[in-house]
Structures are given as C-alpha cells and as structure tokens.
C-alpha cells in the first residue's frame, strides 16, 4: 500500500496557552513494500506523524492518502483505514487484557464479524508470523509470558487484522538483548515474506542502520533529512544538525576520516568496516 502525506500540520491544544505545533507542513510518501526508518529527537513529531497515518489523529490541516483514498473522506469509514495501517504502540504489551493469548489475538478479528473458523485461522497464522508456536502459546495466560513474548503477542494481535502497512513505534524499548533480537528478526521476516510496508520509529541508530532501506529524519515537526539509509548516515555534521548521531561504526569511520584516513563513512557491517580499516592501516598514507 502506498501512503502519501500532503502538507500535514498537527497542533495540540490549538488556541490554548500551551498550544504546540507538533507537525508543521510535512509532505512525504511511503511506497508499497518499503522498509522505512523514522527517527528524530524526543518531541520531533514522530509519534504524532504515525498516529496521523492510521487515522488515530486527524490533521489540523493537510491530508493522508492511502492508495489515493483520502483518510478524511466521509465516504470511507475511518476504521477501514485503521485496518490497513496497523500501528504497534510503545509498550503494546500494556494493552493485553484477555485470559489467554489466543483470546487476546482473536479480539480484533472477531469484531470484524469474521466467522469462527476465519478468526481461529487468523489467530494461528499471526502467532506463527511472530514465531510463537500456537499449540504452546495459544492457551497460555499472557501475563505469565516474558516481556519479549508479551510484545510479540501484542504484535500478533495487530497482524491478525491483516494490515497492509505495519508501523512499529520503539518496539524494542526496555527489552533484554534476546527479546530485542527476536522482535527485530520477526519484523525483518514480515517485511521480506509478506512484502508488507514497514515504518519503524526508533532512537537506536544501530538498529535503524541494520534494517531499513530509507530514513526520514524529523526535527521540530519538520522533515530535516530523508533518503537512502547509506546516504543519510554518511554525513555526521548535517545529521548532528537534526539532533541525530551516526550509528556506532560510521561514527568511528567518520572520526578516522577527520584524522586523514581515506575511508567511506557509511558502512554498517562490522566485518566490512574492519576490512577497510585494516587495508588503509597497512597500505594507506601516514
């Protein structure tokens, strides 16, 4: 699914003393099947933007088009848009409520009025998609699961609605390294196997660099930079101007370049970086 945002502006508390312009005339597109990283300092408007994209918030001005259909068009019910754009909030596990994992995931599809068989099928499929064995996890109480497992169940609940776009907001925050790796692997597979459009909001530039194809950087409610990942993470100064730091490996490469080494900056793979540094160390000019 293609998403177009045209001149989006969103103001919290318009006319009040604490009025805040969270987004200011933002236009951008997300193409079908793309994996995009959305980054920016706290308060830059990331979460506001993703809530506008699935119709949870209505723009103060501007519009959002899903495959050319205006979200604000009264003839298209808003719930239809929400079905197509699945949003996984920060700490989604806090929204788990049912007594069993299967019940929790079934809640959304059942509200769509699907048949019992269809609901059961969706529950099973979405559990498999997040890598949880339905026979082992379906009847467990969600509150007995680990933090990472709970989060996977919450994601499965969104996937059971069969969204065409998946937006994840800080999806690894607070997890241990293993939980983090599991979730990221699952999202990568969803993108690859289901060809889902994925928009990932994160503060972790190493995570972003290792996964996404394109990066959009927000600052104070405006787009500060955007482009292919390698391009955005190639220039330390301009990125610093947007309040963002380079991922660790490019950071090291960038400091070496400043010291006169002839190296590319935009390398994210540790082995590749090691090879290039060793080559320059042994053969490059002093």
């Amino acid at each position, binding site marked *: 699914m293609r998403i177009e945002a045209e001149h989006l502006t969103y103001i919290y508390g318009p006319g009040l003393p604490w009025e805040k312009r969270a987004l200011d005339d933002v236009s951008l597109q997300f193409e079908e099947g793309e994996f995009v990283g959305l980054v920016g300092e706290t308060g830059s408007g990331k979460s506001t933007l993703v809530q506008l994209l699935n119709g949870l918030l209505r723009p103060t001005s501007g519009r959002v088009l899903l495959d050319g259909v205006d979200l604000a068009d009264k003839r298209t019910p808003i719930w239809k848009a929400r079905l197509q754009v699945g949003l996984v909030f920060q700490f989604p596990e806090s929204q788990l409520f049912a007594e069993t994992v299967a019940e929790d995931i079934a809640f959304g599809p059942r509200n769509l009025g699907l048949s019992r068989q269809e609901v059961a099928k969706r529950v099973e499929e979405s559990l498999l998609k997040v890598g949880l064995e339905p026979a082992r996890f379906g009847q467990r109480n969600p509150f007995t699961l680990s*933090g*990472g497992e709970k989060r996977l169940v919450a994601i499965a609940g969104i996937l059971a609605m069969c969204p065409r776009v998946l937006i994840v907001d800080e999806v690894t*925050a607070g997890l241990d390294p*293993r939980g983090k*790796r599991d979730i990221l692997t699952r999202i990568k597979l969803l993108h690859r196997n289901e060809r889902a459009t994925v928009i990932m909001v994160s503060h972790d530039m190493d995570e972003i660099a290792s996964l996404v194809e394109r990066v959009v950087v927000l600052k104070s409610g405006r787009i500060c930079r955007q482009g292919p990942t390698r391009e955005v993470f190639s220039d330390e100064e301009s990125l610093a101007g947007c309040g963002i730091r380079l991922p*660790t490996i490019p950071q*090291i490469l960038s400091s070496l370049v400043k010291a006169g080494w002839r190296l590319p900056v935009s390398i994210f793979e540790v082995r590749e970086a090691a090879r290039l540094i060793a080559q320059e160390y042994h053969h490059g000019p002093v």
Partner: protein
Amino acid sequence: MSQIIPAMTPKIVLEGVSYCYPDPSASPVYALSSLTLEVEAGDFLCILGPNGSGKSTLGRLFNALLLPTEGSVQVDGMDTRNNAFLWKIRTRVGMVFQNPDNQIVGTIVEEDIAFGLENLGIPPIEIRARVDWAMEKVGISSYAKHPPNLLSGGQKQRVAIAGVLAMKPSYIVLDEPTSLLDPKGREEVLGTIQELHGEGIALILITHRMEEAMLASRLLVLEKGEAAFLGSPAQLVEEDELLRHAHLELPPAIRLAQLLRGGGIPLPPFLSRPEELTRTLCALKRST
C-alpha cells in the same frame, strides 16, 4: 543492644544468599541461589543477565527492600534482617529505578529532592544545603523551581538520582536507569553516574546495555539466579561461550577492535569506547 552498629566495615557482604518468591500453588521458585559477593566502598559493579535471571531481586536485597530467604546481607556490618538497622541501611544504600515517574513525588524539583531529608528530620538549613549540592552534582540547578512533569526523561531521572544523592549514601543501586530514555537522556544520566563514581560513591548498575556495562570496574553476569561470571569487562569480552549462551552481544566498537587485532593491528586487548579506538588507531598508524 541491637541498635549498636557493629565495628565499621565499609562494604556490602552477601553470604550464601538465596531468595525464593512465595508461590502458594507450586514448588518454590528461586530467583537467586547461594550467591556470595562483596561490594566495597568506591566499587563500580554492573549486573548483567537476561530477563528473569534475578538482577532486580538482587538489587532489592542490597537495601533490605527484600530480605534473603537463606544466607545474609550485611551493609557496613549491619544485617539487613535486623529491623533496627532498616533506616540506617536505607540511607546508606540508595535506589534509583527504571521509571523516574514512579519515584518522583514533589510538585517542584527542589521539593522532590528534599522529601527524603524532611522525613529524616534533618534541620532546614542543612536540607537547603544538601538539596543545592545534590542539584549541582547532577546538573539540574537551573530547573530547581520547575514542576518535574515538564522535564525530559533524562532530566527526571537526574532528579530521582539527586533525591537519592541528597541522603549522602555510600552506595547507590541503579536498576536499568537508562532503558526508558532517548539517546540524549541516556548520555546525561551516564555522565551523572560516572560523576558519582568519581565522588567515591559505590555504584551497583543493573543494565541490559553492554556499552554501559563496559564503564564498570567489575561485572556480574547472572543466569537463572546464579553467578555465571564475576570479573572485569576486559575478562568478559574474551568469554565467547558465556556471551553466547547468556545472550550478551558485545558493543560494535569492541567487536571491531577484536577483528582489527585479528587482522594484524597491534591494538591493546581491551578498548571499550569508540573514541579510545580511533585515538589508538591514529597513534599506531603514525608510529608505523
């Protein structure tokens, strides 16, 4: 008699400590089993381990928020099971939790920091001096009159740290103090933590982030409630097998340094920070 503090030994000593959460239905679940450990004055110990390995349980045993089911915890010679020492122990061992919102009670920053001191009945002049000192130490003096809810995550966490610091503790336990913060907030809090260590306060840092762990002088890796490793960061990075099964991943800068050493660049065995790595590389290249 129990009010008398035994001969002063400035360290925390855990001897054969086990902790078992009561479970009425099933057999008891041991969160920690037979752990022996010492934290000396001025130490910087970091506790690592997957979720459910017993890190937070251990953190809460240091200042008698939990009491050991078996074995003993002594803070400067005071047994945490002795109720008479409770307040003394809690003033010596401060706690900072993951979410500062759960720890902040005041309507403005300086009131929040004064809260613990007021409860101890400390004279107002002394309170004023200590609050100012603590705010200065963590770099929040300019928000003294601000309501805490309007501060950023990093600022709030530093308010929480100042509140603990004002009690003049000898030890501070920090339970994942940066896991909910953005990169800027994390940097602020880590800067503050290192500052505290420089002041001679012993730190016990619980974290999942290896970059942070590398700042400590000693690391304890817990697995299923047992100590799987106790040693320096430089020793841990060599333990491939342990790192793998404890699901710990070395920070990219350390992996890069290891690969470069393997590729024939004579780097020292342990470089924890990216800046150190680039500086050493440049110096080595100049000398070739």
